[in-house]
């Protein structure tokens, strides 16, 4: 079974994000970019399936600017077998919206015929949490979202989902789309020998036009602002005072 893992290049989670002066978005010029952390977990999950014999090949795909090939190389160094870059933008500030990404992924799925697609549950830049679900809808496949565990059993997959208040295990028919949550695994370090080998692994370069998908934005960003600074806290003298404040001022009790 082939596993397809889409990976997104996003602003590194350690970077202190700054809003562009004109308010159209976050400033990405000369900023450290990395693989979306949830996608790293997805790559790790796919590699573990291959190591366990449940998968035969891990193909990673990234959609965005040309520099996304760095992200793909990192996935190859972690252990993915092959990569596809779909160049869909020239400007690092142009985000490709989930529907366009899902349409491109549908075309890749049709060409590659994987038995499983593992996505991150969301990208940490715009937190859309939509691509996996849209892809499932476009393909008419089953889906298991917010997965913290995944087991393949013949033509079904057992997906343990992190839902409000607990865990839910569902059985879905393969082929399927799984979107992974934080607790699925701890991604490995790309080891030095694998980094050196990654260069020799195939990386195919495509464009959105090759798949006939229009990636023009459908959404308009009205305004981007920094979160308001946190107000200073207060010290309370007693538990009674705390309870009173939670009741009367915060209104949470």
């Amino acid at each position, binding site marked *: 079974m082939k596993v397809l893992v889409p990976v997104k290049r996003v602003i590194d989670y350690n970077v202190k994000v700054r809003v562009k002066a004109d308010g159209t978005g976050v400033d990405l010029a000369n900023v450290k970019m*990395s693989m979306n952390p949830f996608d790293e977990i997805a790559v790790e999950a796919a590699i573990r399936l291959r190591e366990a014999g449940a998968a035969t090949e891990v193909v990673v795909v990234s959609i965005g600017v040309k520099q996304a090939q*760095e992200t793909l*190389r*990192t996935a190859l*160094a972690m252990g993915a077998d092959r990569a596809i870059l779909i160049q869909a933008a020239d400007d690092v500030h142009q985000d490709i919206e989930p529907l366009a990404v899902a349409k491109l992924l549908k075309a890749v799925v049709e060409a590659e015929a994987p038995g499983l697609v593992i996505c991150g549950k969301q990208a940490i830049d715009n937190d859309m949490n939509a691509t996996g679900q849209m892809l499932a809808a476009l393909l008419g496949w089953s889906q298991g979202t917010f997965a913290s565990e995944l087991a393949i059993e013949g033509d079904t997959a057992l997906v343990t989902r992190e839902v409000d208040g607990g865990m839910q295990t569902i059985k879905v028919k393969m082929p399927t789309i799984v979107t992974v949550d934080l607790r699925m695994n701890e991604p*490995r*370090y*790309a*080891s*030095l*020998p*694998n*980094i*050196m080998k*990654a*260069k020799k692994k195939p990386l195919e370069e495509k464009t959105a036009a090759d798949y006939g998908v229009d990636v023009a934005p459908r959404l308009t960003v009205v305004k981007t602002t920094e979160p308001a600074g946190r107000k200073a806290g207060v010290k309370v003298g007693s538990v009674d005072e705390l309870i009173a404040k939670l009741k009367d001022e915060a209104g949470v009790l």
Partner: protein
Amino acid sequence: MDFGLTDEQRMIVETTRAFVEAELYPHEAEVERSGHLRPELIREIQGKAIEAGLYAANMPEEVGGAGLDTLSWLLYERELGRANYALHWTCVARPSNILLAGTAEQREKYLFPCIRGEKWDCLAMTEPGAGSDLRGMTASARQEGDDWVLNGTKHFISHADLADFAIVFMASGEEETPRGRKKLITAFFVDKGTPGFSIREGYRNVSHRGYTNSVLEFDNCRLPASQLLGEPHKGFEVANTWLGATRLQVAATCLGRADRALQHAISYAAERRQFGQQIGKFQGVSFKLADMATELRAAELLTWAAAWKFDQGSVTEADMSMAKLKASEVLAMVADEAIQIHGGMGLMDDLPLERIWRDARVERIWEGTSEIQRHIISRELLRAVGG
């Protein structure tokens, strides 16, 4: 000239940095405060480093290393150099390249176990009476039949307590040269436990807490000829062939620590407020940052250029000395100014700055003092014009 990193180099930096931050930083306070590295901790981190292919990555691929070019290797050294020295040197060891000079049997006995993390090496040249002037060493080796008999004392020998064997340099005779009589030096492998070889606790020093040094005593220590490293009387030739890049390694680890201090200083200058504004708005602080960053960049470029020349086969002694001299001196300046920018907080061991400042001190002394580096650089300049 290309000043960009390749994809591989970028990923080496990312992996090594991630490892250092996740696996080494959390244990720094323990090692700094106790001055001791627990054996269980060593094993735990070592296992992870081996899995990530970071252990002994300085070695060529044929013997189980990462097979890095010099620049890539030094990028890795810079990342490791950010952390407490005892932690990175012990748990992510880089066995001495001189082990590659051994015979096939010696590789089996010493090199491969070091690469697999089963043994540690140490290297003993310095004596109480011979530091910069290594040729002046008096510890001796004399041939008796097929055996060699070693006598004398070595001191300041790093991590000899932990090491399973020492590579020891001994005076083995003298020869006449046009510039007078010169001592001949021979190198040996000496296993811990060899009769006549003992290791004593060394000195407590200001830099690199948890990283020990020892005194080595040789009292009629008898070795078979199979323990010779290289040819008899060719000890310095072996050392010069295989230890050439260690000055660049020192430079690279200095760059990592200096960068860590600088990043702390930049963040603090942007956060700390006095007199109603960020202290980074005062030129007295911001110009310090500018000088620190500029000097650090200069030291980096000297080091990367020397590394690049090393692989081209065009590096000179002066190139490597300049890199080591500049990087170790810049580290001292950056560490000092980073503390200054932090005010009193910079001195407290809640932050890594006080120890980066302490650790900086040894870098201008070991692997050739700053004066010896200046001597090497100036000799190359003057010799070119017959001086």
